[in-house]
């Protein structure tokens, strides 16, 4: 007797379910498409009025004045200003925590610190923004600022206050992803180094750190992308003065803050202000897209090597 190995008939129910599930997955592609469509149409309209080279190379951003000027550089500089100082603070702390957790901490310390980091990373940015401007600026930045250096820190809103808050927000992200990358380095490398008599510091810095470098860089790139896209902290702490500067003690405006301030009012969809929101949004989207893709590639690289 030949065994019956064929299914008794086509199962249409199974196909329908598979189709529904595939549609769910496709919805995320549609989201990206919708973002692009939402951005592109008003952006093209905007460039019909404001020449694209004037937008990209102009050094004056004053949409509310007459005559309005749409040079995007000051608010791009504002975004980079905040990101630069935030990284100067977040990268050493994030990496320090990561190396400590992965190479120095006992398993018990590690398993308590990980959730604490997750909680820190989960605090709403509006709470961090309030903390940055009412605690970070008067009780941390002003006491530590070296006197009259660069004219002192007298302004009520400064880029550095936002950097302080954002650093606090992204340091746990850097710590968590870098710790994962370093923990994924095979134990054999570590044991080999210890057997040769290397100290913990030598093992961490000369063996584990280079082996995990792509994951570490990915965590930093992702952190920069988060910084560039952060809105509430800069809105609360950095002011809203477009300012082409990289000084940490100046009031500035970032791209995100501009979008949030202008789009909140009930604007007419035909106004140039309304369309400028989408043009700035396009710049922001492209900047973060480039960084995200880089970070995704780097993470995949270390996964390929060690997992």
């Amino acid at each position, binding site marked *: 007797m030949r065994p019956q190995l064929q299914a008794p008939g086509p199962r249409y129910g199974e196909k329908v379910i598979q189709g529904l599930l595939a549609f769910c997955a496709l919805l995320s592609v549609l989201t990206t498409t919708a973002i692009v469509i939402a951005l592109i149409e008003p952006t093209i309209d905007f460039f019909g009025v404001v020449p694209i080279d004037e937008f990209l190379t102009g050094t004056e951003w004053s949409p509310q004045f007459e005559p309005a000027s749409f040079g995007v550089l000051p608010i791009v500089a504002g975004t980079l200003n905040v990101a630069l100082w935030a990284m100067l603070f977040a990268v050493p702390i994030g990496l320090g925590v990561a190396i400590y957790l992965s190479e120095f901490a006992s398993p018990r310390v590690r398993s308590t610190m990980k959730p604490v980091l997750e909680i820190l990373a989960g605090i709403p940015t509006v709470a961090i923004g309030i903390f940055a401007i009412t605690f970070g600026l008067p009780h941390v930045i002003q006491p530590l600022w070296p006197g009259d250096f660069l004219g002192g820190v007298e302004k009520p809103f400064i880029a550095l206050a936002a950097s302080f808050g954002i650093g606090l927000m992204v340091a746990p992200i850097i710590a968590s992803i870098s710790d994962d990358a370093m923990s994924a380095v095979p134990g054999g490398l570590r044991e080999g180094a210890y057997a040769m008599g290397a100290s913990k510091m030598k093992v961490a810095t000369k063996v584990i750190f280079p082996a995990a470098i792509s994951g570490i860089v990915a965590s930093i790139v992702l952190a920069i992308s988060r910084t560039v896209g952060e809105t509430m902290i800069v809105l609360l702490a950095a002011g809203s003065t477009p300012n082409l500067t990289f000084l940490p003690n100046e009031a500035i405006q970032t791209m995100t803050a501009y979008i949030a301030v202008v789009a909140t009012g009930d604007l007419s969809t035909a106004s140039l202000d309304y369309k400028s929101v989408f043009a700035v949004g396009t710049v922001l989207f492209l900047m973060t897209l480039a960084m*995200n893709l880089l970070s995704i590639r780097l993470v995949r690289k270390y996964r390929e090597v060690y997992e």
Partner: protein
Amino acid sequence: MELGGMQSERTRLAAAGARATVAASLSNRPRRDVVLNNAFAALLLLAVLIALAGLVALLAQAFVKGAPALGTDLFTDVPSTLRPESAGFRPAILGSLELIAGVILFVVPIGIGSAIYLEEYADNTRWWNRMIEVNIQNLAAVPSIIYGILGLGFIVRGPLDLGFVLVAGSLTLALLVLPMVIIAAREAIRAVPDSIRQGALALGATRWQTIRRQVLPASVPGIATGVILAISRALGEAAPLLLVGATVFVTFDPTPFGDGFSAMPVQIFQYATRPQEEFQALAFAGVIVMLGVLLAMNSFAIWLRNRYEQRW
């Protein structure tokens, strides 16, 4: 006899010499190395302490500054621009609850459905499946304000044209956290070993029966953790809501399709930007309420993960 004594003496000396050499090269590391190592460990510990100090200072400051305004009337009073003593968060709290209910309705079926498709059905060698994957990873890191623009240009106006209503805010937040849910659900599904699937298939179950009866039940804790973390993210987001009409001065209880709604983080932001001391205290009281809810949710999610994490 004499010879044997000499030999044992030589062996003893040789052993001692070797031991001394090994000890010198291993335990008696150069002094500089030991000092450097300790300094490095101290620096690392300092980084950990700074991160912890930031968390503790944030919580402590919220409690000190928010305590005077804390009370049950926060939950019953409506916002006011003039009288901070009788201003509260009622419409904002209700708005946040309704927003989150909408997010859950949307994100749970679609997030889990996408994850099942990508883990159980999709053929990873096909370019379109790889594209979906990269696309989701990118969406997880798109700035929240861009989702606000999407909501404004696509949901409030444009194709869906819902207007500035609560449902538009809900949809925007749902799209924002959908990638988080998908990524977490995929990890949970991937952790179920293949032998379970093969066992079910070998007994004659169809693909969907295998997923429905074996894979999904085994991955529920991981999926639930991801969903809770995603919801707590949605609860704390303010930026995209600013763009889709979370107008801050709402003194009535919000309805899903009624004009105008508010949410906790937006209301906190609004109070925080007022110069008066009393409104600042209100903002901090709001922060306490929100942090309380979020900490409870996150702790529960982490507990859930650690409690039900299965080692196969």
